[in-house]
């Protein structure tokens, strides 16, 4: 057979689906180069998407979308009269999260997705196998995280909405997000831009958005003030305003709150879909298009009514037009039903159902009436989703240097720079210079409310409570603590991360005596890459007879699961001193009152320098240690602390070693009422903080007086935290 010339072949290849065209890059060297050129990507984008009908994808029922390894999106063949249905798989459980929903229409083949499991936002090209790029700082945007230690006011925004734009001049994609406070007037609105495939993170947009915007995840932003529409110029990042669409209240005389308004793009114009919705169904659907007259001048744009659609028999709170389909308008409901209406026959013409999920085996099941169902448009496109920041960083020497610079900054600063990735940033301990320990106070066992030493008093009264709470020294960026026998928590006071650990239902809690400082311990499992919490509880504790019973439970912090079975408790009784973690092991002190043998540590630390890493509450008082019986390890004294001259403020009974300042060699001591640096060379003790009121009336109204105590923790420069998965609200 005679072969075709190259330019004809190029035409043919540009009409292939994206996946087939991408596969042809394995044909030959010259074709590999040719088919990777931006000019071919553009040609393919134009050619491969000309054939009707529009390309849609749909997801299975909610139950299946909830399974991270099983959800998938199907190519949806439209066919009137039951000819269509879900076809081949486009995307299968790739994002590491569940409940995906498209936030935007395809733009050069790319679609923004949000996964409602953890609210992460992804850029995805469904036509080439669903390769997805997780956008940084989206699961729990730092601007939308309330951090009490920063005080009241911004930066803290309630709402965030995302949009995707393409600047054809610079040939770059921009993801835009708007933060807003809500419906209040004069509240600030912030806009941030993330350029795909660039070695940077979110940055403020060049232009300032108008205040008091209501942001909704429709890819378009509504101006809350005048009811108008705010536009964003993707090229120069300036904001503009468009006239508001006519209000439905004036047309149909219905109450404002019943009106649903959805905005999208249709037929190259901005489109607003309005209808009144009540419990008994909804009224007719009005579609408005913003038509431009006299060129691209936005001020000359006018809202024109496209059509009015009679109430459809399946009420939904989210009816949105998808695209034009010949003379018809393709629409969907919140339950993934797709139907077509005739644009010309205004008010007349019954909607034609093109797809109902429950009629097909692959998609049958329960569907929630949601604003953003897993159904949308896609395009055949060879446009890549771009690389992650890390991939770019490690492909360029210049940006790698930048990343090294970041490692030297305090964690807090780095997080404020918004260079936080969705994944935890490993603590940069290896490359850090020796630095004095950073101390913060955990002010509240429930909310954390961490405060720096110099601001502790001005923000909150120190906790005055009959029930003390303690917090461990950091382990791989996190701290763990106990509040009396009421609750345990994990926290990173640097990041205002504070999470309560739930009690175990089968937990045998015998009441008040349960509280002891060794109750909760934190370790890090390098293999799994997750923190481990160990909770010990005495079921019996009788010093006189030296009889005791210990219970031990473990939990992974990130996975949020208690081990179902209790694990064997330590072989010897544990004292009330905060445990320590070193080299993959957690160490407790043995309680000499309960243990018959000796008062050495259950598993002695392996070397002297690790001793300072331990919390040696009891060890301080003892000054030296016995060699553990039956082990090879030898204790050697690293520091000798003489506290006799500083009594009663620092007595050996209540003083704890918190750490050693590597810059000066001084030892940080805490009595929970005073914090001081002890110099082992000179024997001098400098108090850096002291509780203002040593005794205070309890704030629980009981009239009792208690010691004023603080809970000081040494913090690691760490961006670690485990964002909580949001409970589905819809």
């Amino acid at each position, binding site marked *: 057979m005679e072969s075709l010339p190259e330019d004809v072949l190029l035409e*043919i290849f540009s*009409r292939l689906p994206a996946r087939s065209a991408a596969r042809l890059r*394995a044909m030959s060297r010259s074709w590999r180069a040719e088919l990777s050129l931006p000019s071919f990507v553009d040609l393919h984008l134009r050619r491969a998407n000309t054939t009707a009908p529009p390309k849609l994808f749909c997801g299975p029922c909610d139950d299946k979308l909830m399974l991270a390894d099983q959800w998938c999106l199907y190519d949806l063949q439209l066919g009137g009269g039951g000819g269509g249905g879900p076809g081949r798989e486009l995307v299968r459980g790739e994002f590491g999260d569940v409940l995906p929903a498209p936030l935007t229409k395809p733009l050069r083949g790319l679609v923004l997705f949000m996964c409602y499991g953890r609210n992460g936002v992804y850029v995805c090209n469904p036509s080439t196998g669903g*390769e997805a790029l997780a956008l940084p700082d989206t699961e729990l945007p730092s601007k939308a995280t309330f951090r009490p230690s920063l005080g009241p006011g911004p930066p803290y925004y309630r709402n965030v909405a995302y949009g995707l734009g393409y600047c054809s001049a610079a040939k770059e994609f921009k993801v835009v997000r708007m933060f807003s406070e809500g419906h209040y007037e004069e509240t600030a609105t912030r806009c941030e831009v993330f350029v795909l495939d660039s070695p940077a993170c979110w940055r403020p947009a060049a232009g300032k958005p108008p205040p008091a915007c209501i942001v909704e995840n429709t890819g378009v932003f509504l101006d809350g003030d005048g009811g108008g529409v705010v536009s964003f110029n993707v090229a120069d990042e300036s904001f503009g305003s468009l006239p508001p669409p006519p209000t439905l209240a004036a047309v149909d005389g219905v109450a404002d709150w019943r009106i649903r308004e959805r905005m999208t793009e249709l037929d190259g114009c901005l489109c607003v879909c309005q209808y009144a919705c009540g419990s008994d169904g909804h009224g007719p659907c009005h579609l408005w298009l913003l038509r431009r007259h006299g060129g691209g001048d936005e001020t000359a744009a006018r809202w024109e009514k496209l059509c009015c659609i009679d109430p459809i028999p399946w009420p939904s709170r989210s009816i949105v037009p998808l695209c034009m389909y010949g003379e018809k308008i393709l629409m969907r409901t919140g339950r993934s039903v797709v139907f077509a209406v005739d644009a010309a026959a205004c008010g007349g013409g019954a909607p034609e159902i093109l797809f109902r999920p429950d009629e097909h085996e692959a998609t049958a099941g329960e569907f929630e009436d949601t604003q953003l169902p897993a159904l949308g448009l896609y395009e055949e496109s060879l446009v890549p989703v771009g690389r992650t920041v890390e991939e770019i960083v490690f492909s360029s020497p210049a940006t790698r240097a930048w990343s090294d610079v970041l490692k030297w900054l305090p964690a807090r600063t780095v997080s404020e720079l918004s260079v936080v990735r969705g994944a935890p940033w490993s603590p940069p301990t290896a490359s850090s210079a020796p630095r004095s320990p950073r101390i913060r106070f955990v002010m509240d066992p429930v909310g954390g409310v961490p405060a720096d030493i110099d601001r502790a008093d001005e923000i909150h009264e120190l906790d005055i409570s009959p029930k003390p709470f303690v917090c461990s020294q950091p382990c791989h960026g996190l701290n763990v603590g106990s509040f009396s026998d009421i609750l345990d928590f994990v926290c990173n006071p640097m990041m205002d991360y504070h999470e309560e650990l739930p009690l175990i239902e089968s937990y045998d809690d015998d009441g008040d005596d349960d509280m002891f400082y060794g109750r909760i311990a934190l370790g890090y499992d390098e293999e799994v890459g997750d923190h481990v919490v160990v909770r010990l509880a005495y079921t019996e504790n009788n010093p006189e007879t030296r009889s005791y019973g210990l219970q031990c439970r473990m939990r992974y912090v990130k996975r949020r699961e208690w081990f179902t079975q209790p694990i064997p408790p330590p072989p010897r009784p544990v004292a009330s001193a905060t445990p320590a973690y070193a080299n993959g092991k957690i160490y407790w002190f043995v309680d000499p009152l309960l243990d018959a043998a000796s008062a050495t540590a259950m598993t002695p630390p392996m070397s002297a320098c690790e001793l300072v890493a331990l919390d040696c509450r009891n060890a301080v008082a003892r000054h030296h240690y016995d060699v553990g019986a039956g082990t090879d390890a030898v204790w050697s004294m690293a520091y000798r602390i003489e506290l006799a001259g500083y009594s009663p403020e620092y007595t050996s009974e209540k003083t704890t070693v918190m750490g050693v300042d590597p810059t000066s060699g001084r030892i940080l001591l805490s009595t929970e009422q005073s914090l001081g640096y002890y110099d082992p060379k000179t024997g001098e003790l400098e108090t850096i903080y002291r509780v203002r009121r040593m005794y205070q009336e309890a704030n629980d109204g009981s009239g009792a007086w208690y010691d004023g105590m603080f809970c000081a923790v040494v913090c690691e420069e760490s961006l670690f935290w485990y964002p909580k998965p949001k409970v589905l609200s819809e």
Partner: protein
Amino acid sequence: MATGSGAAAAAADAEEKESGSRMITLTSNEGKAFVVTEASARQSATIRSMVDDGGCVDKGFPLPNVDSKTLARVIQYCDEHGNKEAHTVDERAALAKFDKDFIAELDADKAFLYDVTMAANYLHIQGLFALTTQCIADTIKGKTPEEIRTAFGIEYDLTAQDEEEIKEEDTHA
């Protein structure tokens, strides 16, 4: 100014009407002459530009790259699209049906389909070219790179390093 351009447009319209009735002769490489309406011939951007340049309309156009069998089929397409209106929904539907039958018939004979594609490319008949290339694309859609390489006589020249890269991209996607 406005009236001037309006008059020019009117004159162009008149010329268009007049030229619509003109007949044009196309000659295949075998010397066979085909007489078609100008509207039909204007489907080809190549001929259209020659006509508009005041070329030799009377002498006809020799097409040395197209044989008689192919030209006859191409003219069949041009006649349908050049001489029929496509303003109403029904008219458009009729044309779509013609295209469908036309390409289905061509699809049965691959060599001939390629000849028509080449002619459409040479004559710049946009609609026909889109139709035939889409048809070929549809047939090769599911084929492996090896099969397509054989079908189009493309030389295999990938190095081991290229193959390694390709493998990596595959696992990535």
